[in-house]
């Protein structure tokens, strides 16, 4: 029996064998929660990887299907008592599938997504077109003739974007205010930059208030996370190297406000050892602000917090955002049930697998409704988009914000 995996970067068999099949990951897995099937659970997927490594299964269409259905949320890593690093196993297996497996189901769609999201300029152009389409009333027409029903993915995208903000440029350097604590680079991200430009502005401002000089390189590009998760390791490696090179090497931190990007960047060293020093400097903005003093004024708000997968599970940052929000005088933080269960966004997953993504969204929104909070904070643009659109469609009057937006408003409240 020879392994179905080939080549030097096959999934690490020792890592696979660390799984003792206890199943503690099952209820934390979004696809298991929706489907209730073993092969769409982390334990089942690891078992399939093991079977492939032992030559018991081929990298077949079915094999690929069950791995494709994984959202890559890594909730299973948080749950796993044996410390199996599922994320890296998944990336490696997907890379194997790219090279040796059958073609993906959504090839064209995926290609479209990958040509769009990692390229801020193209995404910007697409969004400009979208604005035009919206303004011209074409949207109503398209909906009316049911085109969207024929193409569920386009429908998903249409639903996601309600109003598309115009992104203004950020300066290349924001000086620190008050006592200087250090220098931080800021990743502006692809989606964040286009869809949530205010989050980047608030991030830069808060970092400056916290005492950091903020460096924002213009040609920074994409972190490559989407490609890594899809098994496109060569494209990912190229992007990672370009990104790392675009930041000066003397920064204290490279700060992100998009959990997915931060999680990928912190792990650059796994595949690209030369990027380990860069990866070691990556921090989520929340981690940096948690250690800083901010002049926070009163905000009488009830807020609930959704754990972005790649912050809670990918980066293990769970308490800091809650503590930060609780620091705001007047702000009442109510816990969200299943707060760390994926909302279904997962990079481009909601475009590729709208069915499962919708069920997860449904669950998430039901939990949000239970809290009674009108504000939901989440530290990842994908989550913000997905949950906001879900609430809108279901008529739940809830506003989605990045925690830095609340912190920035609290700072405003302090100064006014």
């Amino acid at each position, binding site marked *: 029996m020879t392994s179905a995996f080939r080549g030097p970067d096959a999934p690490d068999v020792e890592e696979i064998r660390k799984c003792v099949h206890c199943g503690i990951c099952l209820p934390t897995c979004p696809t298991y929660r929706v489907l209730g099937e073993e092969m769409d659970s982390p334990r089942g997927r690891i078992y399939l990887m093991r*079977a492939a490594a032992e030559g018991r299964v081929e990298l077949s269409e079915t094999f690929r299907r069950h791995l494709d259905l994984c959202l890559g949320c890594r909730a299973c890593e948080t749950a796993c008592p044996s410390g199996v690093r599922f994320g890296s196993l998944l990336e490696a297996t997907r890379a194997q599938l790219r090279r040796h497996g059958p073609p993906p189901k959504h090839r064209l769609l995926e290609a479209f997504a990958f040509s769009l999201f990692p390229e801020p300029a193209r995404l910007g152009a697409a969004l400009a077109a979208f604005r035009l389409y919206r303004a011209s009333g074409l949207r109503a027409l398209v909906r009316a003739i049911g085109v969207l029903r024929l193409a569920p993915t386009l429908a998903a995208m249409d639903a996601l974007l309600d109003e598309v903000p115009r992104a203004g440029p950020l300066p290349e350097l924001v000086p620190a205010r008050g006592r200087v604590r250090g220098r931080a680079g800021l990743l502006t991200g692809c989606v964040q930059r286009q869809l949530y430009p205010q989050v980047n502005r608030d991030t830069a401002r808060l970092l400056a208030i916290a005492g950091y000089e903020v460096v924002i390189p213009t040609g920074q590009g994409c972190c490559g996370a989407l490609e890594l998760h899809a098994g496109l390791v060569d494209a990912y490696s190229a992007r990672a190297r370009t990104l790392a090179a675009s930041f000066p090497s003397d920064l204290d931190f490279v700060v992100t406000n998009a959990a997915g990007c931060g999680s990928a960047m912190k792990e650059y060293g796994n595949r690209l050892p030369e990027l380990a020093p860069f990866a070691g400097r990556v921090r989520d903005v929340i981690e940096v602000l948690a250690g800083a003093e901010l002049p926070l004024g009163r905000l009488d708000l009830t807020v609930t917090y959704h754990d972005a997968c790649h912050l809670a599970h990918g980066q293990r940052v769970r308490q800091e955002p809650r503590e930060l929000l609780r620091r705001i005088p007047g702000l009442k933080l109510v816990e969200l049930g299943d707060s760390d269960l994926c909302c279904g966004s997962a990079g481009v997953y909601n475009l590729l697998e709208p069915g499962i993504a919708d069920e997860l969204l449904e669950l998430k929104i039901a939990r949000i409704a239970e809290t009674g909070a009108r504000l939901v904070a989440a530290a990842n643009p994908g989550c913000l988009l997905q949950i906001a659109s879900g609430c809108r469609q279901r008529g739940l009057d809830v506003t989605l914000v990045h925690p830095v937006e609340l912190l920035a408003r609290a700072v405003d409240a302090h100064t006014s």
Partner: protein
Amino acid sequence: MPLSRTLLADLERIVGAGGLVRSYEGRLVYESDMHTFYKGAPDVVALPTRTDQVVAIVRLCRAERVPIVPRGSGTGLIGGAMAPQGGVMIGLNRMDKILEIDLPNRCATVQPGLINLFLTQAVANSGYFFAPDPSSQMVSSIGGNVSTNAGGPHCLKYGITTNHVLGLELVTGTGEAVRLGGKVVDRPGYDLTGIAVGSEGTFGIVTAVTVRLLHAPEAVRTILASFVAIEDASEAVSAIIAAGMIPAALEMLDEMMIRAINEGSNAGYPKDAAAVLLIELDGPLAEVMAQSERAAQICWERGALEVRVARDDAERALLWKGRKEAAGAVGRLAPTYLLQDAVVPRSKLPTIMRELIAIGARHRVRIANVFHAGDGNLHPLILYDDRDPEELERAKAANEELLNACIAMGGTVTGEHGVGLDKAKNLPLQYADADLNFMYRLRRAFDPETIMNPGKLLPSHPACGEGFRPARPRVPDGAWI
């Protein structure tokens, strides 16, 4: 024997294409429960959502004498939820609803696929909990708990699953959905609920469970006591029980286990101890305070290195988190292990621990221990590397020897994990032919064709157990004309 095309078509008619796992890859992942030593993939997996679908599936299979294997979350440790003879596996994971919570009568009715902990979470705000807490409670299903009559750390005080099950809906091997027991206690007739709990799917498929809910205790105190020798810890356990206390839980972990857990959870277990006792007392505050002082005193008297009381709920949760994840954390020690579940009378705990250490040394195997010391329920994990056949043999030999030692002390083969495929062969250590024959006959009343989870729970024997028919007692000579 592969399933007939008509059977598959009929199954698909019952549960729909989305409720049927037919692919090779899909079936493969159902070949084992947590005990991956045993493998046997079903020919198909059906995922029903309603009782009437289960009834229809069982009737179909009965007509063609196709084996049926029920499965919950697949966290069993006994090779129970796997299909050594192929056939149809019924995954109950999509029957996971809470059907009713009846707080005035302190009970709830749930579907079998509901995860144990989810029930407690649903009633916690009202001050109630579901007592059975197997270490897998964050994933194991209530149907699975019922099937194996699962225990858990807190069964020392609260009893095991059977003590909390009021009623069942059971689809028997003849495809009848019967209601056994219910919210009201003391039903006239045989206690079929009692005998069905722990029948490991050999009587049928449980499709609904009515369970008792308990009011959460006023106070809980968790004490961690560490010892330089495992014998001292064992003596302390016996002394606590003998002193007339029934702690909610009384758990022991040995050095190797402490290390593995600390690596995983950072649970703050003392690093230099040879054994740790986790003692939990709950109940009215005044009782808990008095008894926890007494328990701590006993630990000091038995030479404890350190006795500390969890300061708050967070620390308490952390101490327990490490304990609950122990079985998983073993992955950090060795890739594979044999797990014992034997029980000895609690007064024999110090003796069996000495014996266990000797057996480990004799067979040159590492044995990690994490177990329910208060009930005398051992869980030695005999570590081996499955790529080393010689080490596996030594592990097996140590395992058998240990089991025999427990039985010789008046113990039992399995305290809470169940029998399954793994321990069926060991039952004759504990039961005579007459006893086994009686059990076969019970099974036959529920499942005349032996299609329900065949090969599990009872040792296989030619002629389906008839071979266990015992000789009748001799009637005195001369009684007959």
